[in-house]
């Protein structure tokens, strides 16, 4: 399973109701409050679904999940196992 940029951006735009046209792929999402904790819970489930992985507390680092590009890189690493 592959997580694409388009699918991820659409998911984030839907869950945050933000205009993602104005959000760059390197913009901080969680640190800036664009994604709140509830949306983050959704994102973790979404990542597991799209990478076929099961995340654990040891995988969680804000630096891995704070921008579109970092989430994509994290998702790709998880998918490779």
């Amino acid at each position, binding site marked *: 399973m592959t997580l694409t940029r388009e699918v991820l951006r659409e998911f984030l735009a839907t869950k945050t*109701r933000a205009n993602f046209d104005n959000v760059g792929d390197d913009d901080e999402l969680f*640190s800036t409050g664009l994604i709140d904790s509830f949306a983050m819970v959704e994102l*973790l489930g979404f990542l597991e*679904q799209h990478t076929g992985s099961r995340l654990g507390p040891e995988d969680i680092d804000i630096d891995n999940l704070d921008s579109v590009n970092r989430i994509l890189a994290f998702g790709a690493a998880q998918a490779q196992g």
Partner: protein
Amino acid sequence: MTERKGIVIVGTPRSGTTLLRRILDAHPAVSCPPETYLLSAAARFLHEERFAQGLRIGVLSGLSFAGFSEDDVLGRLRAMVFGFLDEHAQAQGKPRWAEKTAFDAFHLDAIARLCRGHVYFVCIQRHGLDVACSLRDLVDKTGGYVEELHDYLRRFPQPLEAMGRAWVDTAERVATLVAEDPMAIDLRYEDLVADPEAVVRRVLEHVGEPWEDGLVERALDGAGRVGFGDWKTYGRAAIDDSSVGRWKSLPEPAIGMLAAHCNPTLERLGYEPVEVRGGEVSDEDARRHYEMALRLSRMKAKKNAKSGG
């Protein structure tokens, strides 16, 4: 000259009824005051209960024992309610009235009994999950629940579920009114915000009034009368569709719960049923995700404290 003067707007609260009210009120021939609660008050007057042996207990059956027919009682009540609205329209220098009070949808059976054959009904429906989200916001803003929602909240303690169930009941009642009354027109909120002129033209044709250029713009220019109603429309200078599909931002378990209750009614009204993605989340997964999100929140607080310092 239009024979039937009254226009009654009905829809589940948060379905665009206030927007319609403002547009109709901007028409030179129609006066639609802010919410009067006249029709729901009349509906309460008509409230009755059926007891053993089928006996109806209420004002209509009570007065029938005193020699007043149902038609007579309904006629007197109608004259009182319509009298206020007629007088108000005259004071505004307009020949016709329209009436809209959001929570009338919960009293629709009695209101239809009182008004059917004497008014045009303008019925508006909106996607149930968007209504549930919007009703929940309304409660957050007002800090309380109106009486019409009490029973739902007693039975369904999760506010979103209670609001979804309330939507099902009221939307079904509105749909039934449309099916049974040839003087009722059926609209959708999503169409109204996508193409206001097309929808308002349909409404005006239905009630026998001509289209007026600039009507929608005039309705939103801020000169409208202030009173009870949806405050959100007063904060907008233009109609947009930004509130359409907001339910998609809900967590998947909440979407699944609402879909289970709302899908049959959504389909009856011509909406696509809501697809539930991802299936049920196990208790263990829900807890694991929650713990990870908490861990992230702590990391965020530390990061922000560091950058702030």
